[in-house]
Structures are given as structure tokens and as C-alpha cells.
């Protein structure tokens, strides 16, 4: 399947994605950041009674936490982004690309029919999908593409 077709037909849930980092919205900013550091994640999803209520990302860390006195002790609910734009797990990859592009989002939470958190799709997951689909053009490049071997054997 060519990439144009796959982004329209393949569901976003079929992308290879890591398990999401999810915490209660009552957690402190410091706790959330520690969980992001442990999970090597650039975002955390916050919830109350199992429902998504907000998202906290590395952009928030830069703008609202680092070098800000007392920020680590505050509850994350005070500085997270409330009610983030989400995707349904059955939506095509195309929807994720367009929502990311229009809203300037790097992470979009994915929910199921019951509104429960499934995971979170990131720029990286889309780039991986693209590269996998065009692998013969991308992954077979010589170290310096301007210096092509003049023999098949590369000698």
C-alpha cells in the first residue's frame, strides 16, 4: 500500500506506539516530571476517575516549570492543558496528521468508544510510519548520497 492510501485507510491505533504515561491530576508537578523522566516520555496524560482531564508536555516544563520558584510542588492540574484535542482509536492516521498540523500539537491522546485512554500518538510515530512505507528510498541511502558507488559492488 502506498503511503497516501495507508494514511487514509489505516487506523491510528495500528501505529507502533509506546504505552502512555498516565497519572492522577492530583499529582504534583514534581511527581509527574519524575514519571516522564523514568518513562523517557515527552508528555504525561492526567486523569480523574479514569477520565482524561489534561495533558502536560515538555513544552510546559520549559515555559512554566524550569527556573520557576516552587513550581515542582504545585498540583499538575494548575498548569496542565485542560481538555486536550483527542482522537478516536478508529480514526485514520490522516486525522492525526491534520490535527497535529492545524493545532501545532506534538502529542494527541487516543480514546476508545467509552472515552477511556488507549494511548497517545506523537510526531515520532507518524515519522516512523512514513519511513517504513518508503523504506527503499530512505533506509538504503549510502552514507553520503552525493558520492554514489560507480560499481554495483561499491568498490
Amino acid at each position: 500500500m502506498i503511503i497516501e492510501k495507508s494514511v487514509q485507510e489505516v487506523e491510528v491505533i495500528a501505529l507502533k506506539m509506546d504505552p502512555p504515561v498516565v497519572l492522577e491530576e492530583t499529582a504534583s508537578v514534581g511527581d509527574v516530571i519524575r514519571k516522564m523522566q523514568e518513562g523517557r516520555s515527552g508528555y504525561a496524560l492526567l486523569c480523574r476517575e479514569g477520565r482524561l482531564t489534561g495533558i502536560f508536555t515538555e513544552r510546559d516544563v520549559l515555559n512554566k516549570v524550569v527556573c520557576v520558584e516552587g513550581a515542582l510542588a504545585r498540583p499538575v492540574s494548575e498548569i496542565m492543558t485542560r481538555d486536550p484535542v483527542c482522537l478516536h482509536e478508529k480514526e485514520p492516521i490522516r486525522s492525526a496528521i491534520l490535527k497535529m498540523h492545524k493545532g501545532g500539537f506534538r502529542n494527541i491522546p487516543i480514546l476508545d468508544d467509552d472515552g477511556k485512554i488507549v494511548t497517545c500518538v506523537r510526531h515520532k510515530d507518524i515519522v516512523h510510519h512514513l519511513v517504513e512505507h518508503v523504506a527503499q528510498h530512505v533506509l538504503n541511502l549510502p552514507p553520503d548520497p552525493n558520492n554514489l558507488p560507480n560499481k554495483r559492488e561499491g568498490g
Partner: protein
Amino acid sequence: MRCMSCGHDNLPGADHCEACHASLVHEDVPLARIRSVVEQSLSRDKVQVLNPVQAVSVPDDTPLDAAIRTMRDRKIGCLLITDRAGKLSGILTERDILYKVVGKVEDPAAASVSRYMTRNPEVIRGDQLLALALQRMMVGDLRHLPLVDEQGRPERILSSRDIIGYLAFLVEGVLESEG
């Protein structure tokens, strides 16, 4: 020897692809075989067609807190660090701040940005192929790729946001042409 047309992995030294019979001599790969607009673009277009934004850079002796303020004020997720000669020596991203700085550095005014930046980052030139940029971003798990000139001085910065925008444009274009 992977076939550029169908991706079949042939024995080294084969003249023609076992699966699709395309010639395996590089010059003979017909671009017309590639049906996808995205694939054609990736194998032909240069990084500069995406018109990446101007890079913001600071000298490597800048205090960490000043570097962070610059990122906030200029609303950027990535700051380039240069040496005395103006050459790129490192990169400081939101990720570096999340992993190495927040909650870990007592006094960011007393620390130098060069201690926390990622040294010798992967780079690309504007006249190199988009496919190569994508490959470097994926292999290195990078969200930003600085564009440097022949002397290694930073000029612009390619981000995954540009890649998403490029895809959005091509995907929308496909929809339009299908009516």
C-alpha cells in the same frame, strides 16, 4: 543488493532484480515506477524545499538560565550552541531540559549551557535529500536537525513539525486531486 523499485533483497552482484526484473544498476532506476507522490518527492526534493525556520543560537559560555530564557522568549523548543568560531558545537532541546535540568540543577545561573547541551549533534545541509533528513531523524530519534553551511555554522533548523506539515500538504493534495 536491495531493489530500488520493489524492495526485494537480491544476492550481491545481481544485474537485475529477481522479483521485478528492474535493473539494479543505480542510474537505470526509473522514477516513473514510483507511484506515490510522497515517495517521488522524498527521493528527489532537497531539505530546503520545506523552508525550515532560521535557527536561534547562543555562544557555548552562555549561562544555563539565560539559554532557557532565550528559548521561552523566542518560543522555540531547541537552541543551537556555537563555539568561538561560530561553528555549531551543541544543541539544547526541551528534552535535555526535561531529562537533565528540571529538578536536578540547583542554580541554573551558575551553570554553563555547554554542560547540559547534546554535543556534536547530527546535522544536514539544505541541498541534501529530504529522504536523508528523515533517515537521520528516525535513526537518531531526533525531533530537530540543524542545517549548517559549508563551514559548519548553523543556519536553519528542520523539525518534525516541518515533516508533519509536509505530509499534511501532500495528503491534502491527494484528496483534492481525487475530487
